[in-house]
């Protein structure tokens, strides 16, 4: 009898901890997205050159891969997440300025932003409602991601617009898988650090937004 109570208590404690990670992740994610929006607007106002995007993405990725894991369990981790997301947002400035200068630019940016929001919220709601375990996707998504990086590398030399469109479409599919995978890991206790969970989900949102911008930008040119 006591053992049953103990099991129920353990499950309840685990569920509370999971909910806390989930709540903190979404809270930090929403704050970092707002901060990114602010730095992107700042970058647009400053009229930063195109190389800002490249420098910010490489800098942000290097900090995310090598610095953040060391500070993920300390309060400094939150500051580093804001630094990374602020840098990535700042890098978006010249990209958004370029799209805004297109005849249909405002529409493309609005649709990409709205589309990214719908995809993220839809997939998160699906993972949360079904409570399915998507841990089996890990290997598949990582291999897919590496193949996309290889294809993107090849396309720097080949410069094929159709391949660029295809890469963006595949990135959206893979990032959608990562949203399911990451959300499922939080729900099932595989990810207990909300700082790392936030940066993972932020990266998926960032990549979906950039890919949608590229797809809609290419499609609007076909008129």
């Amino acid at each position: 009898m006591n053992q049953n109570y103990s099991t129920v208590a353990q499950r309840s404690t685990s569920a509370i901890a999971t909910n806390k990670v989930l709540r903190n992740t979404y809270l930090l994610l929403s704050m970092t997205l707002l901060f990114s929006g602010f730095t992107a607007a700042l970058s647009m106002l400053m009229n930063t050159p195109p190389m800002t995007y490249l420098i910010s993405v490489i800098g942000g990725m290097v900090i995310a891969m090598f610095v953040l894991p060391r500070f993920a369990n300390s309060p400094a981790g939150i500051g580093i997440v804001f630094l990374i997301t602020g840098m990535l947002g700042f890098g978006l400035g010249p990209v958004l300025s370029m799209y805004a200068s297109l005849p249909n630019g405002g529409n493309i940016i609005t649709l990409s932003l709205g589309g990214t929001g719908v995809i993220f919220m839809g997939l998160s709601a699906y993972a949360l409602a079904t409570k399915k375990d998507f841990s089996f996707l890990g290997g598949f998504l990582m291999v897919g991601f590496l193949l996309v990086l290889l294809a993107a590398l090849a396309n720097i030399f080949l410069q094929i617009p159709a391949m660029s469109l295809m890469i963006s479409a595949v990135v959206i599919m893979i990032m959608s898988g990562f949203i399911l995978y990451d959300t499922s890991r939080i729900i099932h206790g595989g990810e207990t650090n909300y700082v790392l969970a936030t940066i993972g989900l932020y990266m998926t949102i960032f990549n979906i937004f950039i890919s949608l911008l590229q797809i809609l930008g290419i499609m609007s040119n076909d008129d």
Partner: protein
Amino acid sequence: MDWMEIISALALIAFIIFFFPAAREMIKNNPQGTSSDWMGFVIPVIAIAIFVTFLAMLV
């Protein structure tokens, strides 16, 4: 080929080298999904593809 493309290519090569061991490890320790599990992934991805096509038609 300008210097930005060269830096992009070098950065992509660095990312591939960095992610490769993690990918190999994930494949080794990856739990197997059933056909029902895969359908739970494929259906939302198809929905996303339809949604993106719809967005592309709006621009």
